[in-house]
């Protein structure tokens, strides 16, 4: 029974996806309920399993040998440890809230069945990544996640922007996955196994087993994370992915899928050596800063949150880079809660304003949408790192780790923290407070219960997750010494300040700086005054540092050039010389030989006898 539970958790969503696609597509309500039932069931079973088996159940479960070719043995197995179990709870828990919310948000949509089928497929794929016990299995689910994300971003496929966005997301991800796959092959060729547990033991026995390939393999595997977790320079797809329905943005592009990259890095942390980690740290730091800077000058509520997600993902990746995977996972966990809630809040606003997304057309929503406002505020406080909210603790752990490893990255982290609180409070001041800046904002109403309840549900962990000892579970997973548990909540709150006062105070200072700047600039503002002060810099931020334009030119030029060259090669060398040439010569030969076949009996007889003579000459005449 206990052994079967994880399989059930994994396959329930798939079952729901299949049933909806094949049978209940016509019945929108039933489809939605099936999908919601599947994920809530998975969530309940996950909790049941943890209650039964604890956080350290059987380390390995490998049921089926899926593929065996020579030395390559690929199992289909589930890896169950604190890391995957916590992730399981996040995916199914946050997922449940978002599924329920979707029921309200998507209720008017014709294709609600398709939406929920895709959502279930996504959940299945994501759980597959989380539970995978080997690289191949992870890669397969990795790609499945890519596919379902593609389906969901492009859910409103009749909109050209959505169609473009899902294409962009898929292609960008493929780019990263290509590196990931090569990395996997490198690891396999060097170590002869793809199973995480076997690899871990091999590397523990002989740290130099990968030899000179170690850095390359680590970085190639990181490429996969770069795509999925949208790290610089592959970050461009995530903001565009906001074309999908808002709950999708909340689930996939805030809480789960984009976290897969970070999760994967933590899963294979033992594979990464110091040089690779250094690169990872810098990439994460750069992404965090870049995205935060861009977020400052965005006006679309979802895009602000998207860049904020990018920035936070950069934080997590940076945490991995500064040898603190447990901090990364901690932040991933808290971020999943509050960012999902922020997105759902944004969705609630968008829903109330009839798909208005520009924050400069909002304002004064505080009184009209109280639940949305207060939960959004809680999320903002957590994201900005206000104690005692969950974000404060997880961000603090990252800053502490950074301060130990790399001073520059630490400074970067603090700067990003300041920017974060600045752009988030800018959002709060402009969208929720101040005067109403459009008629639509004046007529807004609070969203229905089915949408506000998930907000409230997510608010609970947003506020309290810092006190649940999540960091200790992760710490044990990564072999950190368990610190003496603070005796009370009160002590826990002040523990960061005693333990590493520099990081905690710097974080707090950054928060205060950002908040006061936002207060100064945007309180009761009706337009953005920042461009007047900073001119060029803000324009660059507004235009997202011209990355899209740069890539467009780059791709257009190189691709056109390559395409022209390939076309010329194909046209002249392959089709012209090789095909036409070979075909022509053969045709010529055939026609020439046909001349021998005159149909004249005398000629045939002559040739026959000549043939006999030829054979006789060959045998006797030489």
């Amino acid at each position, binding site marked *: 029974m206990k052994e079967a539970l994880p399989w059930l958790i994994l396959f329930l969503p798939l079952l729901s996806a299949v049933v909806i696609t094949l049978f209940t597509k016509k019945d929108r309500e039933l489809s939605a309920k099936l999908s919601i039932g599947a994920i809530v069931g998975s969530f309940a079973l996950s909790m049941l399993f943890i209650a039964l088996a604890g956080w350290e159940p059987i380390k390995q479960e490998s049921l089926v040998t899926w593929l065996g070719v020579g030395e390559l043995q690929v199992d289909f197995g589930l890896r169950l440890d604190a890391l995957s179990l916590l992730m399981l709870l996040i995916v199914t828990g946050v997922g449940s809230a978002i599924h329920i919310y979707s029921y309200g948000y998507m209720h008017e949509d014709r294709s609600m069945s398709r939406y929920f089928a895709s959502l279930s497929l996504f959940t299945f794929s994501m759980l597959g990544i989380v539970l995978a016990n080997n690289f191949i299995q992870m890669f397969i689910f990795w790609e499945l996640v890519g596919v379902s994300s593609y389906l969901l971003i492009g859910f409103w496929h009749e909109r050209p922007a959505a169609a473009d966005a899902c294409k962009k997301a898929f292609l960008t991800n493929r780019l990263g996955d290509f590196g990931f796959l090569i990395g996997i092959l490198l690891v396999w060729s060097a170590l002869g196994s793809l199973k995480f547990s076997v690899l871990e033991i091999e590397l523990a026995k002989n740290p130099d087993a990968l030899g000179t390939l170690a850095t390359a393999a680590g970085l190639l595997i990181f490429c996969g994370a770069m795509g999925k977790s949208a790290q610089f320079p592959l970050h461009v797809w995530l903001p565009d992915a906001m074309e999908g329905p808002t709950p999708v943005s909340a689930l996939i592009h805030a809480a789960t899928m984009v976290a897969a990259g970070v999760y994967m890095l933590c899963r294979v942390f033992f594979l990464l050596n110091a040089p690779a980690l250094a690169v990872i740290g810098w990439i994460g730091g750069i992404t965090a800063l870049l995205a935060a800077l861009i977020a400052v000058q965005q006006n679309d509520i979802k895009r602000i949150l998207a860049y904020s997600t990018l920035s936070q993902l950069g934080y997590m990746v940076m945490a991995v880079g500064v040898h603190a995977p447990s901090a990364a996972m901690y932040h991933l966990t808290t971020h999943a809660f509050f960012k999902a809630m922020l997105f759902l809040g944004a969705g609630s606003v968008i829903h109330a304003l009839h798909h208005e997304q520009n924050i400069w057309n909002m304002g004064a929503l505080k009184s009209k949408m109280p639940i949305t406002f207060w939960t959004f505020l809680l999320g903002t406080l957590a994201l900005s790192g206000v104690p005692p909210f969950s974000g404060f603790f997880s961000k603090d752990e990252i800053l502490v780790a950074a301060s130990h490893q790399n001073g520059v990255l630490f400074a970067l982290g603090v700067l990003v923290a300041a920017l974060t609180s600045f752009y988030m409070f800018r959002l709060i001041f402009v969208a929720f407070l101040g005067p109403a800046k459009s008629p639509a904002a004046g007529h807004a109403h609070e969203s229905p219960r089915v949408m506000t309840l998930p907000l409230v549900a997510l608010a609970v962990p947003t506020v309290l997750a810092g006190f649940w000892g999540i960091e200790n579970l992760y710490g044990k997973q990564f072999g950190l010494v368990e610190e003496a548990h603070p005796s009370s909540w009160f002590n826990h709150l002040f523990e960061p300040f005693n333990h590493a006062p520099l990081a905690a105070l710097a974080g707090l200072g950054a928060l205060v700086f950002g908040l006061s700047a936002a207060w100064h600039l945007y309180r009761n503002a009706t337009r953005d005054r920042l461009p007047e002060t900073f001119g060029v810099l803000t324009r660059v931020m507004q235009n997202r540092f011209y990355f899209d334009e740069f890539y467009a030119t780059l791709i257009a030029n190189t691709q056109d050039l390559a395409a022209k060259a390939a076309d010329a090669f194909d046209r002249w060398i392959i089709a012209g010389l090789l095909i036409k040439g070979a075909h022509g010569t*053969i045709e010529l030969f*055939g026609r020439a030989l046909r001349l021998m076949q005159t149909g004249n009996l005398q000629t045939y007889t002559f040739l026959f006898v000549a043939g*006999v003579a030829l*054979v006789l000459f060959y045998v006797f005449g030489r």
Partner: protein
Amino acid sequence: MNAPLMILEIAVVLLGLVILLADLWTPPSQKQSLGYIAAAAVGLILLGSFFIEAPQARYACGQMYVMDDLALYFKRFFLLATVAVLVMSVEFADRIEAGISEYYALILFALSGMMFAASANDFVLVFVALELITVTFYILTSFQRSRVPSLEAGIKYLILGALSSAFMVYGIALVFGTANTTNFAEIATGAKAISAKPIFLLGLLLVLVGLGFKIAAFPFQMWAPDVYQGSPAPTTAFLAVGSKAAGFVLLLRVLFSAVPEVTVSWTKLLMIISGVTILYGNLCAVPQRNLKRLLGYSTIAHAGYMLLGVTAMSVAGSYAILYYLGGYLFTVLAAFTVICVVMRAVEGDDISAVAGLHQRSPLLAVTMALAMVSLAGIPPLAGFFGKFLLLKAVIEKGALQPAYYWLTAAALIGVVISFYYYLGVVKAIYWSEAPADQPALQISKPTRFSLYGCIAGMLYLGIFPNDMVEIALHAAQALKL
């Protein structure tokens, strides 16, 4: 005499006589269906052949007639081919003005000749069996008496066949003159002493010329395209499958049972013949627009492929030939059955007659496409695995003599060229528009079964080759290579 050993041949000859007699009492409107009776009877004889076992070679008529696994394999092969050819003949019957029963009977007599050939252990029986086959084919090729191409084919086959028979019988005389025997076993034991005599070698070469004519190998292939094109379709099919296979079984017996030492010394010659035959057949097929003529050239190329197995001089090569023939049987009969049905209303057998065939009859289109793909040697069809076995046998020998690699290269080039014209037919079937106002295609039940059987055979041999490999290997071991 040991006549019971020849029970299968006797049954076939008797069946032929019965058909001729039955013709007297059958009303004209029913005469066509005598073919079905003949086919069913041949099918029964085929079933009966499975009650015969020949783990040890047994002999009849002195040592002239041998019954071993190889003989049995080919007898079954010929019986099976004849069933399909008879069904095809009924399909074709309305295009033959008179004497359809004789047509069936002649097919049966040719069959008995082929079955004797399968058991030949003596040059005399070789000659008699071959003449039995050839003489009946003279008539079968020219059976459409009012059609000039058919008569032309008959005349060409007659004159060139007579020429080759002359060479052959002269060769046999020379062999007998030097070896004082025509029996394979006795020649083999005394071969050391006589194989150095040029007259003996000359005699053997002339025998090979006769066999080369039968299988249409270069440079004795001139007759094939014209005769294939002019003859009635069932005759062409029987020529391509039965007559050719008879040539091969005799070639195997003569080369490996009678004079293995001499054969080894002629490896190079055989390799040249094989390679040139492959290239010639494939190159000449490229510009062809007439479907039957195209298949005529294609069968020349296939004779070349099967000669690859001979040049390998090994059990592997021989059983590859047997396997190849098995796949070839289904493939060629499938193609000719389709031609037989489609060309009913069309004069000239042009490829355009099958244009857009998939719209007119999916079954015929699929059969023809599969046949072409199998002939081209594309997996998972029988033709692919056959070619694979042949090339494997040749490459295995490459370590001893690099010339084998050149032969392999020639064969592969031939295969690549052949894609062009085989797939051209497939292209016509699926990507060309069917000409308007084509009459509907009627496929009779037996023909339909025959087509299903051919498709099943092509697929089965291609996908599950193991059983057939086992059987072919067993049969080839009778050669004592």
